């Protein structure tokens, strides 16, 4: 008998003839009922609590605010060519002279100092940005290897809670949920920000 048949057979033996019929209670909150403006404030609060920086701006000021975000992350005088941009990021968001991801081998992306992407969804209550591997988010290595990550979030992408975010996502896309810069709690259970992923996360919230 193959291992597959053996394991499935064991499960059937273990469960026997009478399998319990379990009803799952779903009386937890499905939506967040905060007004939209308050929801954005919660997102900012949670992002900052986990040591991300947040800059807010109007729809016409995105490129300038992204430049300011890069000042925050890299210090003034950064080289535009050292910033890699996900291919679907609108031209109006990009500071002049930045480099679009050209599909080079993933490990070569480590040479860039910073990354600029959009997001698929943002979750206010947990301070989470979700990247979905699409043109706006970029492939996964783009938002991983450079040490500074700048994400542009539009207000329409912000939902209140986790149950509101999942239906907006494609379960078969390569998804990355990002909540603050990389961190560890492995030494005496104290949180330290910045290990292998980007050590700096700057969020530009538009609208």
């Amino acid at each position, binding site marked *: 008998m193959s291992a597959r048949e053996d394991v499935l057979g064991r499960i059937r033996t*273990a469960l026997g003839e009478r399998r319990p019929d379990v009803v799952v209670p779903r009386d937890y909150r499905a939506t967040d009922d905060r007004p939209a403006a308050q929801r954005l404030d919660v997102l900012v609060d949670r992002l900052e609590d986990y040591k991300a920086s947040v800059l807010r701006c109007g729809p016409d000021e995105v490129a300038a605010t992204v430049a300011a975000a890069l000042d925050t992350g890299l210090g003034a005088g950064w080289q535009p060519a050292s910033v890699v941009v996900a291919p679907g990021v609108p031209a109006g968001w990009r500071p002049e002279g930045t480099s679009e991801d050209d599909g080079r081998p993933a490990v070569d992306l480590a040479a860039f100092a910073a990354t600029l992407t959009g997001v698929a969804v943002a979750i206010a209550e*947990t301070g989470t940005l979700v990247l979905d*591997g699409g043109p706006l988010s970029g492939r996964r290595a783009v938002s991983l290897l450079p040490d500074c990550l700048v994400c542009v979030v539009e207000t329409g992408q912000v939902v209140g809670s986790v*149950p509101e975010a999942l239906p907006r996502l494609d*379960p078969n896309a390569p998804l990355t949920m990002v*909540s*603050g810069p990389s961190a560890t709690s492995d030494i005496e*259970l104290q949180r330290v920000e*910045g290990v*292998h992923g980007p050590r700096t996360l700057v969020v530009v919230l538009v609208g």
Partner: protein
Amino acid sequence: MTTTPVRPGETPLAPGAPRSGTTFLGLPTAPRGVGHLRGDRPFPEAARDALRDGQLRANLGHATSTIRAKRAKVVGEVPDWEQLRQAGKALKASTMARLDEHLVELERQVAARGGTVHWARDADEANAIVTRLVQATGADEVVKVKSMATQEIGLNEALESAGITAHETDLAELIVQLGDDAPSHILVPAIHKNRAEIREIFLRTMPGVDPELTDEPRRLAMAARKHLRERFLRARVAISGANFAVAETGTLAVVESEGNGRMCLTLPQTLITVMGIEKLVPTWRDLEVFLQLLPRSSTGERMNPYTSMWSGVTPGDGPQEFHLVLLDNGRTAVLADEVGREALHCIRCSACLNVCPVYERTGGHSYGSVYPGPIGAVLSPQLTGVEDNASLPYASSLCGACYDACPVAIDIPSILVHLRAEHVEAQQRTTPEAAAFRLLSRAMSNPRLWHLTQRAASLGRFLARGKPTMPAALPPPASAWTRSRDLPAPPRETFVQQWTRERGGRS
């Protein structure tokens, strides 16, 4: 499919052959001689040594109280926590009730998206599959994401014996690996080490480390970043576990903090994921419950820094070869026990460890298994068969703190009591305890005998010499009781004697 139990040291059978104990339904438990589910000595013995280690107790006390406070704060923020908890419990129960159907669906979905699914009856078979897969790539090293399943089956040792080096990349796993130590906590395997001890390990074992390295956690984390960076960039094969797998979509999820998981899941050409068969959830929507329960219970964060999800392979993004190894290793034996199967609901958050008064004092190594603490005390004996971990169901005061903290409401105290009963019933020879209780039972069912016994017991007052408790140095078998417990001195007068004296025998 029944087999006779095999003693340690006997010739191992072929991988996959049932060879350890079996349950009454004939379902094999995790085999002996491979992996890390059994200690080399009973819990009380190991715990006694751990209790004498003042540094260990200080480290554990500090770390567990830090994490308890963080968890309490973020759980308190969630108004519907109890509803989420009950939903999580029911979701797990309904998953187990249809586990075979969900696994077949998961296999279909993963295969449809370019992944390959392998089935492993036990640790030996899983180790052989992974070793073969790594060898097929020609690589002689792999990077690993922290994974309980691969710890459980002893994968690193199996790879090493095949000439393949496994680099642990989680900071705590790295500390344990560099220190030639064993993990002592599900979430923070190096919880028993403080910053000064970690600094010493890094200075001693990391090639090219800055000799000026201080014990500041940030500096230590940066040293680990530098140490692993080049390994991530050159790795061709990664091995991970999985926190969740969604049957209906074939999505796998790894929940982590440092980004080492993302490195492993993104950069290498080949990804091999080893997952216990109980990690399934039926639908995509079900993750809305567990992604709220797990981070808050585990690290005490609203959400962990990184959660990666993937199904099969994505052209142009991440590994282009994906293998999923589904592991039984005693899980179906656990599933066969209607009370004990709830232990399979565990999502490995480790909240029960952090609230347990026993774990806080003895640490994880005393449990002898990669699964320590309250959940380990119910899971390990069931995976191995209770006789191979017979002391673990007793490693608890049954205070119930674990049940209260568990995000999927596993009734750990009830399973502990259930396993104790199973252990007692399995005894072939009469234990002193059983003999004592049999005598007591006879005395208590006969009033005259009972009064005589009580009068005899009052002689114990001479031994107590006026103290409220009996001396700890009683001869065996009484010493088995008094070594770790106070035995009250018998009263001057029993209740019945007092009643008779005051009421003159009238009822």
